[in-house]
């Protein structure tokens, strides 16, 4: 494998790992408090829905959209996801927002599950089924977008899928063995890194895709070609560090 392929695998692995850890916390909370049958049924239903969504989205994106429009759509979505993660990472690093804690998230989910009324259909607890389904599907759709985008940009879909799949298997094994949320994972640092990556690839693709509105309809060319992604990464990193340094001065009473 080349360095670029390793980079691709590492990127999709890190991004997917964070999403799978969050999904695992939700499913664990439902399984422990409301019963494993319903939690697993919700998870399996979400995986089936995700497979259908991936097939439909993959087919639609690759056959109906011209390349530049595909870059604009996927790049814009990546930018929005990446910048949301970056915003949270900046606020957390500057002490303006509490660090994400899987133990706390797990406690909140289990508390909500204990309070919810018990309603069963076909022997499955509706609350646990719906919460597990939504958790896995929501986090899973983000993984699908990340894999499609990174795979297409590097023209290596198997490597992108491999990175995400290995993250999924690792989280699943850890969840089965530990039976508790993976709180020891440096999730905030991972999210910061992934946010920077998504923002850089997203900016590169979305701007290229604006070429769809020109007379030729061809993608815009960044100066330096693919090297522009590294320049964008450096710019996002620098900007985020400046914000981390500067933001606490705006709200010193909140910053910790």
């Amino acid at each position, binding site marked *: 494998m080349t360095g670029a392929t390793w980079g691709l695998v590492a990127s999709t692995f890190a991004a997917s790992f964070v999403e799978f850890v969050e999904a695992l916390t939700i499913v664990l909370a439902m399984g422990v408090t409301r019963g494993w049958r319903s939690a697993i049924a919700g998870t399996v239903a979400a995986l089936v829905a995700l497979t259908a969504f991936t097939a439909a989205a993959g087919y639609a994106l690759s056959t109906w959209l011209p390349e530049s429009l595909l870059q*604009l759509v996927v790049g*814009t*979505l990546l*930018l*929005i996801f990446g*910048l*949301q993660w*970056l*915003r949270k990472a*900046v*606020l957390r690093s500057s002490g*303006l927002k509490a660090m994400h804690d899987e133990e706390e998230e797990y406690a909140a989910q289990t508390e909500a599950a204990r309070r919810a009324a018990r309603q069963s259909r076909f022997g499955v607890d509706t609350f646990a089924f719906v919460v597990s389904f*939504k958790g896995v599907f*929501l986090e899973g*759709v*983000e993984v699908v977008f990340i894999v499609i985008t990174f795979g297409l940009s590097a023209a290596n879909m198997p490597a992108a899928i491999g990175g995400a799949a290995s993250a999924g298997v690792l989280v699943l094994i850890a969840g089965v063995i530990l039976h508790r949320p993976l709180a020891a994972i440096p999730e905030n640092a991972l999210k910061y890194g992934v946010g920077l990556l998504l*923002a850089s690839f997203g*900016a590169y693709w*979305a*701007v*290229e895709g*604006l*070429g769809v*509105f*020109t007379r030729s309809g061809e993608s*815009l*060319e*960044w*100066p330096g070609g693919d090297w*522009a992604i590294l*320049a*964008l990464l450096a*710019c*996002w990193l620098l*900007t985020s560090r400046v*914000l981390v340094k500067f*933001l606490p001065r*705006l*709200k010193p009473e909140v910053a910790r």
Partner: protein
Amino acid sequence: MRFVKGFGQFWYDFIIGDDWKIAAAVVAALAVTLAVVLAGVSAAGAAIAGGALLLLFFVASVLIDVRS
């Protein structure tokens, strides 16, 4: 109707998330970049302007968020 509402809510949560200003900043920055492209600026110049605008609009949205 409940299904349609739930479906819409799902995609809103998924794309817009908990801070709509980020999505607004991205769309606004890309719209201004498109205006630069259509004004006839070279592709390289428009790409650099696009990158700079995205950084600028992101910073502005975070500053608005923190000040509010």
